[in-house]
């Protein structure tokens, strides 16, 4: 799967972005646009990565930038549902020490409420 699909919904004050597909250098500009648009509406965001099959450093860069923007606005970004191979990349790069990770969207919602 080489493309990415984005679906956004709100649960109260929390914005939830579900992503399906690959976040590589080709699709990262779409991801950047989506997350910037959401940050304009909410600073509490869940990024549901359950159906993400690949993330490149370009995608990780967008995540870090968005996380900083959300924190500056008094909110947070929680990443949920990462498959094992995506979690392995996050751990290797040290992103698990910086970003907030949850097993599921339900747990992420609890963390943000």
């Amino acid at each position: 799967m080489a493309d990415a699909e984005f679906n956004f919904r709100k649960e109260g004050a929390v914005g939830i972005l579900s992503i399906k597909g690959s976040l590589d250098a080709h699709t990262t500009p779409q991801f950047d646009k989506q997350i910037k648009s959401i940050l304009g509406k909410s600073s509490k965001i869940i990024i549901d990565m359950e159906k993400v099959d690949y993330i490149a450093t370009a995608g990780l860069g967008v995540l870090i930038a968005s996380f900083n923007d959300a924190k500056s606005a008094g909110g947070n970004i929680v990443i949920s549902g990462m498959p094992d191979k995506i979690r392995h990349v996050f751990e290797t790069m040290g992103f698990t020490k910086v970003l907030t990770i949850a097993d599921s969207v339900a747990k992420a919602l609890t963390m943000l409420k």
Partner: protein
Amino acid sequence: MVGKLILKIQGELSNLGKIRSFVSEYAVKIGFDEIAASEIEMAVDELCTNIIKYSYSYDPEIPPGKRDLEIELEEVENGISISVSDRGKPFDPNRFPSVDVEEHLSEKKTHGLGIFTMKNFMDRITHEYREGQGNTVKLVKYLRQSD
């Protein structure tokens, strides 16, 4: 032994998915587990992304139709060898210093992580540049007992 495979493809970001599938399917056939295969696909993806974004895009001497990539996969003793050839200007990943990821992230920086990925996920990286022909970067990874 799995036979040698070659993919010749235009150096465009929209082809990264095809390149990753080509590489990871071969790695799994050789015996790498899902995590090790994902490390290999990420190292190749980051290398190809660097070539496409920073070598081909800024080189007007190479017209878009000639910005091709050749990816050769070969099973070697107890591992995989991946050679990525391009027609761009000299680019040797070994000449870029490894970043300190923790320090990098604490300063909210993310550039340079592609090179870190290649060096961290692969066991050996060699580079060759031939005048008038371009670069060949060879990435090698060996099977671990857990694979």
